[in-house]
């Protein structure tokens, strides 16, 4: 049995209007064409008989056009057929917590999501075969999985493909949203636990909610925080905070691993392992000392008694230190150890001689010391104390203890520098190119300039900075460190920790990132940033060698605490509320379109026949 309804019944008033216009146009068409003929004498004789009615073809054409208008109006009015078999929305709640493992031995390894899927499939099988389904998931946001309405077998198949997302969800909001659409005769939600909230909609009685594991007590221990500090041994000290959302003591162990290998092929090397016993609702912090600096770390939480403790998937945290490893190629006639640069732990310096540089095709960020190649590299570089014979930059004049006449304090390269203490012994005065600006000038000429050459940062000093003396010569040391930083583009060395699906704003100049699985994320959402699907290491993609890292973690306070329950009123189902889905309307739209095309073709055919008849 079918019933007819309209989504926009107001559009029906268009029909008499359009039909009136059509009738008027026919009337006017018949009246408007005036034909001057010599005499009506003979026509009057014809008219004496009853006037011959309009041809049946003309009438048929009018009928077709009227029918076409009717169909258009019906389409606009949103005609649809109600079916007795309702359209049902199946909402699968698939947040992070739905990956919780069942605590009982018999069901070990089965996650809450699999139970949810099983329950949903049983529900589908219990219904008639003519019921149609739309399948939704709630995490990270409410999304419809199917494009077309699903039969029970295809709905079951679709449900089997649902996976846990590393995110929270809002089941109540999803149900409320679907309810407000008024598209479904029934909305059935399947969730791990009863959720907090209420559905503020008059039609909420059509909403059903099935709670899985309602008889179980779910447990979880989660990594809630990681902090680092530099220990007395100049190595890293990690503090990892754990929270136990359990109703009994949880026995777990915490492992700190170092991530080795490339981003495409990650390997993990165990650094330290600590067992820990957590009381219910206890938060405990564990310390790990002597962790190597510059290491990329993964902190892993495991249960030591899987039969008693079920731990959800938020058992992993990733950690990257403040600065990633950055390398310079030092090209100097001096021995590397004589330059003192190795004391700067934040950077790595690979030392090569000028001869080696000229032989090999080296790529990277260069630090040229007392040497300037004939052809400047197309990369960022620092030139320290170039010889007077260098073809670039140097004017050829030298000066001893020149008086400093100008220092550009506003330039980032000179920040934190007390220029009053800057004491230059000997300088080779520089010839400043057009792409650079003078930062330090003396009475003899320029002593320091910096600028951007072919998109790459270049700093040139006419005076000697090496060996790097550190605290013994703080002014020049600060200048040296500032130069190294500035040449690197002041890249944001991220230690940011994000959550899956959280918006990550990329540093300037970086428009994509790749996670440890090799998946690439391009900047989206109007350039706002990227959203990573699951936890791990994230490497920003940039043209330079600088590739900062970020960590994506998966701790959600609400998702991790599976013990927190709250009740909502589960409404009774009322399946006797037929509604049409958007799909219904869309299908009818297609039928209308085909019918319209057919009618218009017939109309055109009749028009041609009529034309030929008149011309004949």
């Amino acid at each position, binding site marked *: 049995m079918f019933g007819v309804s309209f989504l926009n019944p107001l559009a029906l008033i268009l029909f008499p209007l359009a039909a009136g216009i059509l009738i008027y146009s026919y009337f006017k*068409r*018949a*009246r*408007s*064409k*005036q*034909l*001057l*003929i*010599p*005499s*009506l*004498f*003979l*026509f*009057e*004789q*014809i*008219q004496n008989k009853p*006037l*011959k*009615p*309009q*041809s049946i073809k*003309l009438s048929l054409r009018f009928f077709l056009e009227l029918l076409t208008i009717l169909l258009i109006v019906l389409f606009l009015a949103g005609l649809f057929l109600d079916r007795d078999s309702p359209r049902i929305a199946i909402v699968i709640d698939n947040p992070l917590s739905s990956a919780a493992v069942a605590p009982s031995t018999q069901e070990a390894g089965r996650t809450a999501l699999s139970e949810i899927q099983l329950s949903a499939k049983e529900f589908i099988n219990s219904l008639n075969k003519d019921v149609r389904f739309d399948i939704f998931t709630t995490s990270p946001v409410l999304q419809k999985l199917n494009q077309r309405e699903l039969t029970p077998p295809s709905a079951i198949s679709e449900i089997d493909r649902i996976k846990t997302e590393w995110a929270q969800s809002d089941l109540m909001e999803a149900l409320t949203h679907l309810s407000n659409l008024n598209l479904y005769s029934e909305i059935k939600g399947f969730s791990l636990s009863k959720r907090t909230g209420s559905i503020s909609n008059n039609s909420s009685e059509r909403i059903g909610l099935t709670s899985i594991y309602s008889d179980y007590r779910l447990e979880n221990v989660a990594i809630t925080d990681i902090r680092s500090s530099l220990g007395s041994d100049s190595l890293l000290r990690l503090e990892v905070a754990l929270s136990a959302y359990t109703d009994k003591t949880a026995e777990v162990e915490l492992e700190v691993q170092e991530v080795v290998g490339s981003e495409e092929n990650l390997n993990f090397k165990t650094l330290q392992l600590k067992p820990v016993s957590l009381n219910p609702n206890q938060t405990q912090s564990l310390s790990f000392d002597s962790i190597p600096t510059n290491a990329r770390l993964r902190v892993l939480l495991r249960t030591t008694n899987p039969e008693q403790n079920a731990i959800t998937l938020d058992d992993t945290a990733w950690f990257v230190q403040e600065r990633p490893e950055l390398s310079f190629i030092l090209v100097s006639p001096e021995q590397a150890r004589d330059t003192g640069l190795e004391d700067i732990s934040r950077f790595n310096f690979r030392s090569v001689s000028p001869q080696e540089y000229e032989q090999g095709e080296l790529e990277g960020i260069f630090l040229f010391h007392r040497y300037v190649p004939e052809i400047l590299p197309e990369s960022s570089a620092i030139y320290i104390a170039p010889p007077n014979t260098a073809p670039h930059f140097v004017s050829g004049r030298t000066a001893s203890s020149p008086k400093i006449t100008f220092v550009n304090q506003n330039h980032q390269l000179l920040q934190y520098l007390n220029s009053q203490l800057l004491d230059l012994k000997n300088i080779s005065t520089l010839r400043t190119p057009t792409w650079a600006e003078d930062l330090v000038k003396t009475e003899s000429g320029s002593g320091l300039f910096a600028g951007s050459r072919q998109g790459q940062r270049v700093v040139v000093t006419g005076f000697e900075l090496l060996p790097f003396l550190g605290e013994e010569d703080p002014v020049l040391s600060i200048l040296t460190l500032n130069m190294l930083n500035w040449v690197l583009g002041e890249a944001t060395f991220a230690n940011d920790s994000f959550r899956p699906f959280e918006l990550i704003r990329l540093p300037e100049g970086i428009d994509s990132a790749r996670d440890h699985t090799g998946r690439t994320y391009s900047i989206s959402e109007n350039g706002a940033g990227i959203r990573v699907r699951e936890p791990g290491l994230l490497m920003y993609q940039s043209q330079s060698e600088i590739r900062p890292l970020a960590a994506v973690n998966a701790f959600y306070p609400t998702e991790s605490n599976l013990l927190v329950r709250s009740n909502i009123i589960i409404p009774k189902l009322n399946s006797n509320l037929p509604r049409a889905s958007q799909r219904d309307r869309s299908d009818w739209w297609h039928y209308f379109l085909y019918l319209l095309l057919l009618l218009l073709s017939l109309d055109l055919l009749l028009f041609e026949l*009529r*034309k030929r*008849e*008149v*011309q004949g």
Partner: protein
Amino acid sequence: MAKRAGGTPTILPDGFDPGYLRQLELLRLRSRRAFLGARHGGHVSLKKGHGIEFSDYRKYELGDNPRHIDWGVYGRSDRLYIKRFQEEQSLPLLIVIDGSASMRVTTDSKKWERTKALALSIAYVALIQHDTVRICIPGVFYSSAYEGPRAIYRIARDLEEQPQGEQSRLSSGIQQGLSRVRFPGVAVFISDFLFPIAEIEKNLNLFRAKNLDTSVLHILGKLDQDPYQGVSDAVLVDSETNQELGIALDTGTRQEYQYRLIQHTRVTQELVHSLRFGYAIYYAEEDFRSFVLEHLPQIGLLR
């Protein structure tokens, strides 16, 4: 081309080239009966007198010219008889042109153009024979007598200048035109006859009452034969009365109209023949010259 008295050039209609005029000059106006003429001419007149064609004998009376005595008869019968001859006089020609709106409908300009061409052709034949020609457009124009070949230009100009007549005044106009005829002669009535048979009969009887040797030229334009002009539905407007008639011009209507037109033409022709008038139908799309040169001699109007 000729110059009007006022200096305005008058041009004969298209088709009146020297060749056609020469062909017309070889024709003569023909009457089935003898009529009294106003002056000497080329047609046998009812008037007895000097002429070529013998008429009869009459007894000699005092005062008769002795030169007219037939001495041969006197020798055989010993009585004096005078030989009489039928005098040759000019033949009056009256051309009555239906100038109503149906003849001059703007959507079929050829109909009126060809009507004028026919009238001019016949008039020229008469003028070249020194017959007198009068033109009557009932209710609009009643000319004086045209004489001499050059009068053809005046006729052309006068026809060009006349306004449209009215169908309702056709009969009275004909009556008025015929009343001006002093000497009966040949009459030519050109019309589309798109009015009731009774009215046609009434008009033709006027010619009969005047004892004119009448020929009827029935002219039909393209619109008379096919008024649809490729239109399927329209409001038909009568050019005479501006009366409107909404009708679907489908196949049935068209067939009905064609049937009615043929019937009307046939009845008109029968009526004309019953009055012993000459009748010829001319379709305006055809060449008027061949119609004049071939068909008009066949109906006895020209020879």
